[in-house]
């Protein structure tokens, strides 16, 4: 590795940036996700704050070179705290004409555009729908264009390794990574080590990738194409140990942590579905934790098996996305009726139907609320950032276990695949989620007999008694038919049914006393508008609120992590401000709930484009809303 290190001495002039947004785009087969991941890891290790946005097509391999096959990865690195993957990229790396055509409109005016010149042959241009070569026709004059013959330079770099040209060309993404790593003075040792380990079983591929990466790096410094590299300093951070984590991994680890903290074995019943499958994959690896995972025959069997495991005393979990939520609805109703702890994890994606499997959306909130027949309320917890998925999983499990209820945990495609640095918690600081099972009779009948009543409730939590199969003397039978209050025996009595419906509702409503109140930030005292968010919009809202406040407007914001029940002070907070605005990746589902629940005129900003809000578009929306006379709470008060 010294061949690189010795060239990056202090004599090279670097320009300092406080932040930069880079977007890697290429064909699905070009390895752009891997390139982005490596750049991200190097930046994380270097100490930058960062946020990422992988953006890939639903097709595994759409025809090469077509617009449908473009796969992109955006990463935002900075020397200060950031919460979004950035609005417009400052740098776009386009590996072929299709990537250029798809992505160039996102690039900021005057932004840096690096293209693989070799890919701009006639065939590829036609496939991308270009009639003239955009590199030559002046259409890119508004950007700083760098034409780099990445394919041929890669081929030359690996020539002496004896790699077949077809295989050699595959390493061009590492050439691009090497080049961008030089441009942004990323430390290279970790990337080189990673390549060596990852491809240790295939020495030829390993050597070709190493050579390509080094060639890209060397090209940056010797080609005199670029004036100088840039530096983005580490962000100041709280002391501690960090790792870069995606939402799905964090969620998986949160489930494992919940299992450890509750001393309940973890059981996952799941059916593969994008973008939730990674949780099944990750959990399946961790047999050392005693996890049992079942790739079920369908979505219904996934939740069915989880219910069976929960009945036996496991922490039962099922993971899915929108279409699976629809299929699981009946079984969720059973879990509501059985009053057993169960986690239903919904990694939301674009709907309806198959919709946009790889694009993000948060339009399952009303499904989570109401997507079962009858009165069947259950708690809803939503994660707000990739690393928060860990905490959200723990919190969902806490509620499920303590209240003996299924809980829906909402995440989405953006959180699932996006990543950020995470300050690792100390295991000893994690909450104790342990629970107690019934081991002896809890009721005396009129005839003086000591019996076990499975639906006798804890007076504080209204949670029912939970006796596990295997416990002598407490044999009992429960099911989906209405149960008699207390005994749990089948009851068709009308008064009893009404009582049970109210008891189940009261149990869930009562959780409000056991969750944190909402916190308001920004201009708490005198804001003109309160922005209410939930889920993955947190980062964009945070950025937008700061921008609007910097323009002298007074804005407050709050972010909900508990959607059902709502935090107990939410109504009071909403009524405190003249206007309320709710940005959502749906057509206004939370704003509708807030209106119904609290009689406030909650406005709505929506985005159904499959990509997260940018701070810029929310900034505009907030300013618009502030200048609109139509909305406000005044009329209601």
């Amino acid at each position: 590795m010294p061949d690189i290190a010795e060239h990056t001495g202090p004599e090279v002039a670097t320009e300092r940036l406080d932040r930069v947004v880079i977007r890697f785009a290429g064909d699905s087969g070009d390895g752009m996700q891997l390139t982005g991941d490596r750049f991200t890891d190097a930046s994380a290790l270097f100490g930058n704050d960062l946020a990422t946005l992988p953006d890939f097509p639903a097709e595994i391999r759409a025809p090469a070179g077509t617009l449908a096959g473009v796969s992109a990865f955006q990463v935002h690195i900075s020397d200060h705290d950031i919460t979004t993957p950035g609005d417009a990229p400052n740098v776009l790396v386009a590996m072929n004409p299709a990537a250029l055509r798809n992505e160039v409109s996102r690039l900021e005016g005057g932004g840096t555009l690096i293209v693989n010149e070799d890919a701009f042959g006639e065939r590829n241009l036609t496939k991308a729908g270009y009639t003239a070569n955009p590199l030559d026709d002046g259409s890119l004059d508004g950007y700083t264009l760098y034409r780099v013959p990445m394919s041929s330079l890669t081929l030359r770099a690996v020539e002496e390794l004896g790699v077949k040209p077809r295989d050699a060309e595959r390493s061009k993404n590492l050439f691009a990574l090497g080049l961008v790593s030089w441009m942004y003075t990323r430390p290279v040792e970790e990337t080189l080590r990673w390549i060596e380990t990852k491809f240790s079983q295939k020495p030829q591929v390993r050597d070709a990738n190493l050579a390509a990466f080094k060639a890209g790096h060397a090209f940056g410094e010797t080609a005199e194409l670029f004036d100088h590299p840039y530096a983005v300093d580490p962000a100041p951070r709280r002391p501690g140990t960090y790792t870069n984590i995606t939402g799905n991994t964090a969620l998986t680890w949160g489930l494992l942590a919940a299992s450890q903290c509750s001393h309940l074995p973890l059981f996952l019943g799941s059916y593969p579905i994008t973008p939730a499958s990674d949780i099944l994959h990750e959990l399946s690896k961790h047999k050392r934790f005693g996890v049992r995972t079942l790739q079920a025959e369908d979505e219904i069997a996934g939740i069915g098996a989880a219910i069976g495991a929960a009945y036996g005393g496991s922490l039962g979990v099922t993971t899915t996305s929108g279409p699976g939520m629809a299929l699981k609805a009946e079984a969720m109703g059973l879990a509501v009726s059985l009053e057993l702890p169960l986690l239903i994890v919904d990694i939301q994606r674009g709907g309806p139907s198959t919709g946009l499997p790889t694009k993000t959306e948060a339009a399952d909130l009303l499904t989570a609320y109401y997507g079962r027949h009858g009165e069947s309320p259950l708690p809803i917890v939503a994660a707000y950032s990739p690393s928060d998925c860990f905490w959200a999983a723990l919190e969902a499990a806490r509620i499920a276990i303590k209240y003996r209820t299924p809980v829906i945990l909402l995440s989405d495609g953006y959180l699932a695949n996006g990543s950020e640095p995470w300050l690792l918690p100390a295991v000893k600081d994690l909450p104790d989620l342990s629970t107690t099972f019934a081991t002896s009779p809890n009721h005396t009948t009129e005839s003086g007999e000591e019996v076990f009543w499975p639906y006798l409730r804890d007076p504080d939590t209204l949670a029912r008694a939970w006796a596990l199969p295997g416990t002598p003397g407490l044999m009992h039978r429960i099911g989906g038919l209405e149960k008699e209050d207390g005994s749990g025996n089948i009851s068709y009595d009308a008064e009893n049914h009404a009582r049970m419906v109210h008891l189940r509702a009261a149990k869930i409503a009562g959780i409000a006393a056991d969750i944190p109140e909402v916190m308001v930030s920004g201009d708490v005292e005198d804001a003109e508008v309160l922005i209410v968010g939930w889920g993955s919009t947190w980062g964009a809202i945070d950025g937008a609120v700061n921008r609007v406040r910097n323009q002298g407007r007074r804005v407050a914001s709050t972010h909900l992590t508990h959607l059902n029940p709502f935090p107990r002070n939410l109504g009071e907070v909403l009524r405190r401000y003249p206007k309320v605005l709710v940005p959502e990746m749906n057509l206004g589902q939370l704003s509708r709930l807030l209106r119904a629940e609290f009689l406030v005129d909650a406005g709505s900003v929506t985005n159904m484009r499959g990509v997260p809000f940018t701070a810029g578009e929310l900034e505009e929306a907030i300013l618009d809303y502030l200048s609109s006379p139509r909305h406000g709470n005044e009329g209601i008060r």
Partner: protein
Amino acid sequence: MTELIPVTSRKDWMSDQEVRWCPGCGDYSILAAVQLLMPDLGITREDTVFVSGIGCAARFPYYINTYGLHSIHGRAPAIATGLAMSRPDLHVFVVTGDGDALSIGGNHLIHALRRNINITILMFNNQIYGLTKGQYSPTSELGKVTKSTPFGSLDHPFNPLSLAIGAEASFVARTHDMDRAHMLETFRRAYEHQGASFVEVFQNCNVFNDHAFEGVTAKAVREEMLIPLRHGEPVRFGTDGGKGVVIDAQRGAHIVDVDAVGLDTLLVHDEARTDPSVSFMLSRLARGPYEPTPIGVFRAVDRLEYSAEVSRQIAEAQAPAGPGRLEDLLHSGTTWTVD
């Protein structure tokens, strides 16, 4: 160390719930047989769980004094799979009907069978929907006139045993509600089998489909119409065993006069044969309960049991360095430290 299992009687396995099937329903005799059998299995009530879906048969768990879970239509095999996988110490039974198991829950049934999870599935086949008051079921005969098929059913029926054998179930058997001794023996074998066992029980629904199986199960005709399968013995039935079953390349399994072909030609029943094709042929012998029908254990083969395999993988993962530690997990990716 063997645990001491307290001696129990049939009464101990009866719950305090009033049994609410129609008077005369075949379910009563099946319940009685199960309650009679349980004290003999050497297991405790608390370690036993009955799981069911929806239908008349699905009320079964309420009537037996064990742990019980009355779930939703068709899903009992999936729920039982999760329970048996996570609690291999329990004895998990599934009680289901022809509509529950073969129609709405068909997918779960075949997958539980091929996965070979350790559950005992008792499917009461009455060839009708009872609880919803008399629609045709997936086992009703072609042309059956019911409320939903006033002009006769157009659906070709399932043969439950063919389906189970096709799914490569490791234990497949048939019995009927008119023969307590046969039920006891068949249920015992099903319970003792390691893996998923599937038992079809011909069950009379005297309200909506009375006499459906009488053509083969009535005392007067049994000898001529039921073909008892006994492992290691030639398959024969009828007065003095005068009829038998042979298999030949042209006609598959068919019935012959023993005198005409000779005893040596008869099929010798081998329930342990790994290849399911012979038991499949036996399952096709009768087109319905109006032709001579084999009963007993069709197939009982050794195959890896799913929950034991899951436990094995966990044990192997833990063997080198013990159970996982959360601390190690959190630090398993690339980490860096800020001072």
